Structure formats: structure tokens, C-alpha cells
């Protein structure tokens, strides 16, 4: 594993290398070299099994992290290649020609995050959702609970009480205290 990374390091600019386990390494590479690296790993290093393509929304940094997860079935290595792309007008080079299932992943990411993969077959078709007209739901700024409450008629008539504030109301309504315990939000 280490020697493989050394080999790669001579060719590519790899950063943030982190060994999560002995046979699982996470690394970051620039957007422009990503597909190049993936292709290289597939063709020359035996990473023939494509595990998954995923996206993490780092909204604070304004970035999407795409993770290409590759597996080398012979030597039982895993490499997860991270690449950061801009959140605004997110676009990434399509890799559908490498493995067939990537088409599906790209369709999903297009729908769930709004990342475009130009040239990927059927990338603009509805995949999971049907007639969705809000912001892509997996983006962090989309508030699913709010959306649900606005759309789906929750059953009315429920009311809860916070023990601390209820006790204050009952036992010492006038006395000074700090604010209500805020349990759910951190």
C-alpha cells in the first residue's frame, strides 16, 4: 500500500493522505487530475472494482467533496479519492466510460446535489424523484423537516412541554433563571 502511494505521489499531487485502516486510504487530488488518477489505478494498478461514488457537502467551505472509492480485489486494497469541487455551478468530468454503474451514480448526484456531469448518459433524467422543483434535497441548506411540515399535513393536536420550563412555570413563575434549556439544537 505504501509503495503504491509512493509510486502515485511521483505522478500526481496527492494531499491529505489518511490511513483509516491498513488497507484503506483516503487521499485528496485536484479536480483536473481525478479521472486521470482513477483511470490509471484501474488500468495499471488493478483497481478493477469500483465501489462507490459519493458526495459530501461542506457547505461551510462552499465545496462539494466527491469521493471515488476503488477496490483492488487481488491485493485487497481500498483507495478513496477525494476531490473538491465548487458548490456553485458544480460540475465534474464524467467517468461513465470507466465503469457502467457510474452512470447511475452520476444521475443520482445530479438529482440529489445538482452536480452536473456533462456527457453522462441520461444524467438529466429523473432518477429517484419525480417532478422535484425545490433545491436538490441532499444539499445541506435544504431543510427536510421544514419542507415536510409545509407539504405533508402533519397530524395536528400535539403539544409537548419542556420539563425545566414547565417546572419553572409551575413552581417559580416569577423568579429569575437562565433561558430555557435548548435540547435539540446544538
Amino acid at each position: 500500500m505504501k509503495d503504491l502511494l509512493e509510486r502515485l505521489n511521483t505522478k500526481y499531487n496527492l494531499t491529505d493522505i489518511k490511513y483509516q485502516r491498513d488497507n484503506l486510504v483516503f487521499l485528496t487530488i485536484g479536480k483536473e487530475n481525478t479521472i486521470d488518477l482513477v483511470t490509471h489505478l484501474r488500468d495499471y494498478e488493478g483497481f478493477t472494482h469500483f465501489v462507490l461514488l459519493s458526495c459530501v457537502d461542506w457547505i461551510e467551505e462552499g465545496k462539494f467533496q466527491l469521493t471515488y472509492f476503488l477496490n483492488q480485489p487481488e491485493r485487497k486494497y481500498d483507495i478513496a479519492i477525494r476531490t473538491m469541487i465548487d458548490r456553485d455551478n458544480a460540475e465534474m468530468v464524467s467517468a461513465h466510460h470507466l465503469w457502467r454503474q457510474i452512470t447511475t451514480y452520476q444521475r443520482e448526484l445530479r438529482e440529489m446535489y445538482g452536480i452536473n456531469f456533462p456527457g453522462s448518459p441520461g444524467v438529466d433524467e429523473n432518477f429517484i424523484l419525480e417532478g422535484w422543483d425545490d433545491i436538490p434535497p441532499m444539499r445541506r441548506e435544504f431543510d427536510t423537516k421544514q419542507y415536510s411540515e409545509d407539504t405533508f399535513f402533519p397530524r395536528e393536536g400535539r403539544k409537548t412541554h419542556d420539563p425545566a420550563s414547565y417546572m419553572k412555570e409551575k413552581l417559580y413563575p416569577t423568579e429569575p433563571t437562565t433561558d430555557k434549556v435548548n435540547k435539540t439544537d446544538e
Partner: protein
Amino acid sequence: MGKIKDILSPFTAWGNVVKEPVTIKKPIGREAAPRYRGFHKNDIDTCIGCGTCEVICENEAIDLVPVDGIETKDGDSGLRPMIDYGRCCWCALCVDVCTTGSLTLSNEYTWVSEDPDEFRFIPGVDKKSWDDNEKGWKKPEPNYEFYGKKRVEMPELHAEDRDKSFIEFVTGYSKQQAEEEADRCVECGICTATCPAHMGIPEYIKAIRNDDLEEGLRILYETNPLPEICGRICTHKCEDVCSVGHNGDPISIRWLKRYIADQNPSEKYKEILNAENIENNGKKVAIIGSGPSGLSAAYYLALTGYECTIFEKLPEAGGMMRYGIPEYRLPYDQIDKDINYILSLGVDIKYNVNIGTDITLDKLKKDYDAVFAGTGLHLGRSTRIPGSDHENVYFATDLLREISLGNEIHVSEKIVVIGGGNVAMDITRSLARLQNNKFGKVNVTATSLESEDIMPADREEVVEAREEKAIIDPGWGPTSIEIENGKIKGLHVQKCLSVFDESGRFNPKFDESNTKFFEADMIVESIGQGMDVEYISEEIREQIEFDQRGRIQVNDYFQTGAKWLFIGGDIIQGPDVIHGIANGHKAAIGIDKFINQNG
């Protein structure tokens, strides 16, 4: 050949036609497994309405609702969980996290209805067919916890290291220990109501978890200006009601408070608490006594912009905190840390001023817009048993004050302390230390009316006292002090059967046949303290209401009949630091109101 076999072999299945079917004959109502997670049950008498189930429920299926017949009281919010079966997923996390263990699941599972609004009920209150079902999911045993049940041990000096000196023996939590202890909190907030000052306990514990101690300090100072002191010697009523304490050790709320105060350097207090620019509003308030209530009142008044002057009889501030509590529990530098911060807000203090003699209350009334008196309980109370007027019979408060003032006190070889409160433990342990220094051994016995399980002293005080080789022998009522040749020989006691009668009044019953004799040449009485209100002149006294037992009556804001005079602290509430602080805070609000109303 294989082909023929392939044609014939499937027909073997017809063998089943003569066998009895395996169908369950009566499937409806079939009993589920003993561990099955069926419908909810709740033992509403055990339940305290802490709401932990509500917090852990990922489906927001649980609401806490008031229930008829369940009072809101200390340690019980009076709320009970109502479960919405339009949300529940029967994961039983609520059962596993339940602090009291009252919530369980039965193994019944059939609930069919045409009305969707029916699926909402309060287990234990709304009668259901499965209420008496004993089977069903219970929290797995053992070693299966969602939060720590064992409290993080407070590092202490070993008994041998501490029993000779008055240095503080509780060393305080480290960061890791504090965070670990804070992690156990379930943030129910039951404690807040019980705390006399209603401190934001869950919030500051959360601040510890978040490692945001400045925020923690801000929360502390919202309701309590003496965190260093409270963090050491508070009677922590909050811990008694802590919901985690129902099945395990309660959170060490007191030590966590101390941790926050300890970790914040005093020089940064002003910056943290945003107290650098306080506008003076030109009004003046006099405060008599620099005990907890006085300091608390001064702090909150000063924050609002009042000009406060504290009059202290003794040479140093702190009142009972300094003169009633031994240094090994509450080091003087920590008292100073809290007091100096209050003084730094512009509070003036005048030492060695005795109201009534040096300056009269009437003069204060004239010079100031309002007066707050928190003069505390400094007079010892006597048992009034035969022989209690002997010169070697002392009051604990007096002895403690003398120790704090640095004066030499009389210590003899065999001492008996009468009393089972914290003061009794303080004096016992102080005397034990003095004996140890003087004679190299300890021979001090503390005896109290109350038996061990209802002794008012904190449990750890008793344990620590025993570790320091003091003898604690509770459950005895003193009858007489035997004096021979003008010297005390010892104390006669008889077995106390009960302290309170059925209606809860103080009315001890004794077993006169069961007596005991404690040998002693010095006896210390520590059965309570009395107040000294000599400084209040007759004229003012007429305006103040007293009840039959001579206690001063005040309103919610500790305002007496004399509108300008506010009295709080131990005089009103009995001896307790945190009550004093709460009183001071409220009185400060009352004073603010009073002065604003009067223009």
C-alpha cells in the same frame, strides 16, 4: 435416465398432502416472545417526567404532557410521556435510556382502529389492556448503559495526608474527568427547579462538554455570583433530585461548577462576563453583612448600576462562608477570588462596622435608598440539658469562627460533638485535625438525634469524617452531661426511636431503657443556630411582621413590612449558602423594583 428422474422427483412433494398442516390455528392474539417490543407501559409513580425518552426519540413520537393527579414538585416535573403511535417505531431506545426505569414495553402488539386520532396515549394513565402485562422488553442487563451510571471519582487527598492539616483535600477535576462527568448528564433540567438559585445547570454542564468554559462562567454568574464557593460547599440539592441518580450516581453538579470556576482565571472574569462598562445609576443601597446573600445582592445590584456599600462586623468578608466553614473545605483564597470580583465591580465594603452600635439602621435608611440585611445565624443554640452551661461546653459556630480568625481554641483529648448536620461534621473534622496535631491521635465522637440514614449532613461528609478516624455514632438523644469535680466526664445519651411524628413535626421519641455514655472532657453543641437581630430598633421592628416562632416575615422579594428594608439569607431560609445567594438575587430584583417605583 437423469431426465426421468428429473420428471419424477418433483412429485415427491405430494407426500405433504397427508401431513398435518403447520398453520397456527388461532393466529389472532398469539403471544409474542417474552422480549418482544410491544406497546408501552409506564410506572407513573416512578416516572419523574424527565423527558429523556422524548429527547432520544428520533421520531418525535413522545410528548411530555401534564397529567391530572400528578403534582409538579422537586424532582418530578409532573409531566408524563404521551406516545404517538403514528410516529413510534418500537425501537425501545426510550426504554433503554429511561433514567428511572419506569418506562417498559409489554409484549402485546394488536391495536386496530378506524380512527387515526386514537393512536395517542399516555402509558400508565390511559388504561390499556397491556398495563399489567409482565412480559415484554426491559432494559438489557447487565453492563448495558446509554450513559455513565458511575460518577467520576473526585480526586482527594488520602485520609492520612489530610487529617493533620487544613489544606483543601478535594483537588478538583481534571479536564478529562470533568468532561467525562459532564457527559453523563442527560440535560433533563429537573435540577434547575430544585436549585434555590435556579441555576442553569444543564447549560453549564453542556458548556463543559463543549469545552467552552467562558460560556459556562457566564451561565454561572447569571444566577450565582459565588461559583468558587458554591462549587465547594453547596448543599447540592440538585444532586438529590438528579434524574441520573435514580439508577446510578447523580451527576457531580457541584464539582463541575467548581471546575468551571477554577479553570477561569480571576483576571479575565470581567472580560468574560462583559462587566467592564457598567453605568452607575446614582442610587445607593446599603447591605448589612457580607455573607452569601449580602454579596449576591451586592453583585446583582452593582450590575444594574447601584452603588452598594457592605457593612461587615468582622475584619474580613464572607460571613459564615469564611467563619463557619473550615478551610480544608473552603480555602480562603477561593473565597477571596469570588469576593474580590464582586468588589471589583465598584462595591464598597466597610469592615469592622457593627450595625446598631457603630452605625444605626436609621442612619442607613436616611443615607441610602434601600437596605438589605443578610446578617445570618451566628448564635449557637444550646441543648439545655443538665450541665450544658459548663465552661467546656462550646457552640460549634463559635469554635469555627475562632479557628478561622486564627485564634487558639481549647482542644482536649476526648471530645463529643452533639449534632448531625454539616456544621457538626465541620467542627468534628476540624477538631480531629487539631487533636491530631496536638496529641497525635484522634478521639472525637459525633452523635446526633437522627439515625444514620436521615442525618442531615452530606453523606460524603460522614464518610470522610470516618476516614479521618472521627467516630460518628448517630441515633442518640443527649440526656445530661456528667460533671465530676467541675470537670466534664462525659455525655449520657438515650436511643432515639424517631425524630419526627406522623405529621412531620419535630417531636423525638426515645427508648429510655437503651442508654449509652460517651466519655469526654469537652463537649461541642452543634444543633442549630439562632439569629441576632438586636441591631433592628424597636421602632422598625414594629413595622416588621414576625410569626409565632419569632421568624421574620417577608414577601416574595424579601421585602419586610418596612418597605425600604429587605432581609434575606439564613435568617429567613435557614443555614444554606445557595439559598442565601438566591435570596440576595431576588432581593436585588426587589430592591430595583422598589427604588424604581419610588422614583
